[in-house]
């Protein structure tokens, strides 16, 4: 055998062997123990549309994170102003990037500016928009600081959600920030999507607020809410016949979920109902002791995400740093609540703006149907090529089979994801990959009709068809690459299989079939081309 042909044959064998090695982990259930040490063990990933699972896109309400940052800053400013003995008429947030401050004495203005410059470098002082310029000030949050807060909110939300999902127990979750204020969450193989969505989406902001018992709730409900107070509701009753019970609360939370060290499910021995017991850290426990000690016989409301859970009367000073959330929970609800409280609150509420759920049975159906149409379509194309081009057709068939092998190996190699449109892409490639061989074989037939020898006909058939094949494939490749750039999930999977398939088909249909042709014509002296 000629040297050149030997090398080419060897090259093909090596490529096929490498492809088989990359494919082995996906095909065999158990790998030998030594395999992972020296060889790849990456399996072909299945997309959510095949495996079943949830795909969520969350939008972090980052504006709210900035607003609550401003609220906290106001508390700090109050403290500083008190220390500097500056009196003011009003100090409150206006909009989502500034704090309005109305002084009583115009000469305090300079001191305020100094304080802000020294202690609140994120803020800048501007004259207010109202008539009395000397008394009205606006403290404006810098753009940079706002951006930073927003970014931190997204990062922290990703971390919190990751924690929650880890505790909930999902294999191979994928949680990552997307764009400026979005988070992509992918959870394969989830059985109960509603629970997972609840766990992810709950802000879980736990607050303890004192009930305002000095002012009348009736008056407040009429619209005269005392300054520093707010009305929140407790919902009671079964779904369908829910009642809302209003509470007049002090707006300022005395303790928040920040101080929690643990939250776990316990069973109430009297009613045999689950509840969530909370433990605070030492600082939280001290605070809790102070507050409860100072407000005996008053009511303390436990507020979760703006909804009153309960408002028990403080019987005695509570020193152990423990509290409990009761309610008519099912075991699962209590467990999920404990998870979100343990993982901590989201820095800002999130909103689900995209949800795609595929049940496991549909995913399995899709795989089966996709594979079935692939196998039947493939067999018919293979039979057809064999009948139509005889020996040459068999070469094209071999090229086709190797092409599918290379696509599968390529998916494993690149760690790409196989989706349902991806399977469709492979099916499409089965139809299109033979195109290169059809072009070549038709050319060879033409050349043979002109009376050329087999060797010359094969030679010019390949060389004349080559340019056309390249042209034709490049256009499809352009479409595939653009799709890869702009597509999401399943469509990306399609673009990947299509791209790998096109490139592989150039190798199998042009290179491999040529080597075999040459072997039979040059080495075995084939006199007549069966085509």
């Amino acid at each position, binding site marked *: 055998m000629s040297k050149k042909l030997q090398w080419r044959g060897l090259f093909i064998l090596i490529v096929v062997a490498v492809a088989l090695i990359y494919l082995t982990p996906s095909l065999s259930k158990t790998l030998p123990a030594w395999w992972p040490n020296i060889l790849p063990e990456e399996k072909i990933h299945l997309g959510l549309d095949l495996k079943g699972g949830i795909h969520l896109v969350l939008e972090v309400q980052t504006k709210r994170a900035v607003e609550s940052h401003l609220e906290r800053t106001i508390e700090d400013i109050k403290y500083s102003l008190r220390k500097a003995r500056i009196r003011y008429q009003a100090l409150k947030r206006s909009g989502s990037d500034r704090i309005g401050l109305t002084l009583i004495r115009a000469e305090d203005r300079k001191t305020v500016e100094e304080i802000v410059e020294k202690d609140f470098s994120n803020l800048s002082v501007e004259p207010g928009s109202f008539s009395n310029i000397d008394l009205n000030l606006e403290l404006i949050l810098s753009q940079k600081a706002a951006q930073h807060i927003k970014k931190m909110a997204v990062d922290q939300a990703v971390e919190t959600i990751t924690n929650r999902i880890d505790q909930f127990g999902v294999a191979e979750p994928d949680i990552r920030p997307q764009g400026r204020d979005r988070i992509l969450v992918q959870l394969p193989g989830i059985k109960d999507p509603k629970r997972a969505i609840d766990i992810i989406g709950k802000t879980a902001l736990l607050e303890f607020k004192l009930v305002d018992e000095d002012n009348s709730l009736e008056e407040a409900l009429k619209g005269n809410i005392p300054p520093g107070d707010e009305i929140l509701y407790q919902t009671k009753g079964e779904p369908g016949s829910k009642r809302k019970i209003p509470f007049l609360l002090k707006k300022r939370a005395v303790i928040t979920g920040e101080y929690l060290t643990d939250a776990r499910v316990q069973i109430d021995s009297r009613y045999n109902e689950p509840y969530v017991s909370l433990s605070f850290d030492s600082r939280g426990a001290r605070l809790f002791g102070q507050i409860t000690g100072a407000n005996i016989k008053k009511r303390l409301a436990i507020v979760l995400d703006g909804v009153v859970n309960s408002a028990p009367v403080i019987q005695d000073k509570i020193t152990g740093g423990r509290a409990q959330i009761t309610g008519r929970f099912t075991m699962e609800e209590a467990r999920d609540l404990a998870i979100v409280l343990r993982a901590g609150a989201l820095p800002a509420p999130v909103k689900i703006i995209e949800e795609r759920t595929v049940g496991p049975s549909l995913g399995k159906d899709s795989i089966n149907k996709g594979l079935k149409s692939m196998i039947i379509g493939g067999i018919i194309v293979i039979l057809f090529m064999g009948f139509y081009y005889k020996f040459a057709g068999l070469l094209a068939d071999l090229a086709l089979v190797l092409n599918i092998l290379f696509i599968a190996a390529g998916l494993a190699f690149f760690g790409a994801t196989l989706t349902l449109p991806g399977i469709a892409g492979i099916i499409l490639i089965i139809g299109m990959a033979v195109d290169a061989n059809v072009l070549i074989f038709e050319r060879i037939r033409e050349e043979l009709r002109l009376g050329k020898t087999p060797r010359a006909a094969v030679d010019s058939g390949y060389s004349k068809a080559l340019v056309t094949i390249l042209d*034709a494939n490049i256009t499809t490749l352009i479409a595939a690459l653009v799709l890869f750039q702009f597509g999401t999930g399943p469509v990306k999977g399609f673009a990947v299989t299509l791209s790998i398939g096109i490139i592989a088909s150039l190798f199998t249909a042009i290179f491999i079939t040529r080597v075999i042709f040459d072997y039979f014509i040059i080495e075995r002296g084939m006199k007549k081309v069966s085509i």
Partner: protein
Amino acid sequence: MQFIKPDININFIGQRKIALFLSGALILLTILLLLFRGGPNYGVDFAGGILIQVRFNHQVTPGEIREALRPIGMEDSIIQAFGEKGKSEYLIRVSKTNIDLSGLSNEVKQSLNSMFGETNVEVRRVEMVGPKVGKDLREKALFAIFYAILFMVIYISGRFEYKWTMSIIMAASLAFGVYIISAIGMSIIWLIAAALLITIGLCWSLRLEYALGAIVALFHDVIITMGAFALTNREITLSIVAALLTIVGYSLNDTIVVFDRIRENYRRQRNRDFAEVINHSINETLSRTLLTSMTTLIVVVFLFILGGGVIHDFAFALLVGILVGTYSSIYVASPVLLIWAGQVSGGGDARTHRRRKGS
């Protein structure tokens, strides 16, 4: 074995008036259909809304489902049978986007559970797309279409004509034109329409006749496929856009094979009538054109029949696209080339078809 005899000589070019009429009629029909329907029928991906695929393990009628949805005020949802006949499987589709969508799938599930019993209902798929995301996806898809057009125009004008400078001029003017339009603040749909017109105009004025033929054929295929979708009431989703772009690639693929042959024959037979060269080239490549289309069609037909409901529309798009693409590479792309060549030489005598440097 041969389906097409080597000496076949069908007068395709002679039938170009019939083909022109047919294509024109189909395109007109598509445009009328789209106008009548008020634009393409966008799926949840682009329009926003919620889609729920649900299977019952006994026979259930759409009316019963509607009844079950009445308590949550969703009785005006679109409910259609889905998947294989005989299986009680439905798609429930709400396109309202002014309501809070995030809890909706769960409410639907609970209503169905309480009406039919929890064990009898299986929610197999939920797709919820908020209005913001829908808009994003729409834009993304349109950009994908736009860039696909741009890159392919650059490639074919450069490759067919060996005029890479021309193709760069072309790309630059296209990018410039689109930049101006987007600066004015026109929506992306107009952007694409404008890009299309600029492309065809540029091909015309830069005398890129092969590119012009290929591009006309390409739009022909995509428009008619859209028409087939409108006619059969199918929705345009993300994966359908993927299918459309694949059709673009496929359509060009077929056209390129024919055009390559035309150029090759034209080089050898300068003295022959250009129309004859074209016709001869189409006949020479006919066997290949039909064979490849056939193998591709075989697999796509199986995908269409056996692939299951989720992939059904995708396969349908490919099916129509491949059929139309094969037709257009024979009956649309080459006649456009011929018409242009005739125009340039001032009427009929295509023998004066310009010589091309390097080709």
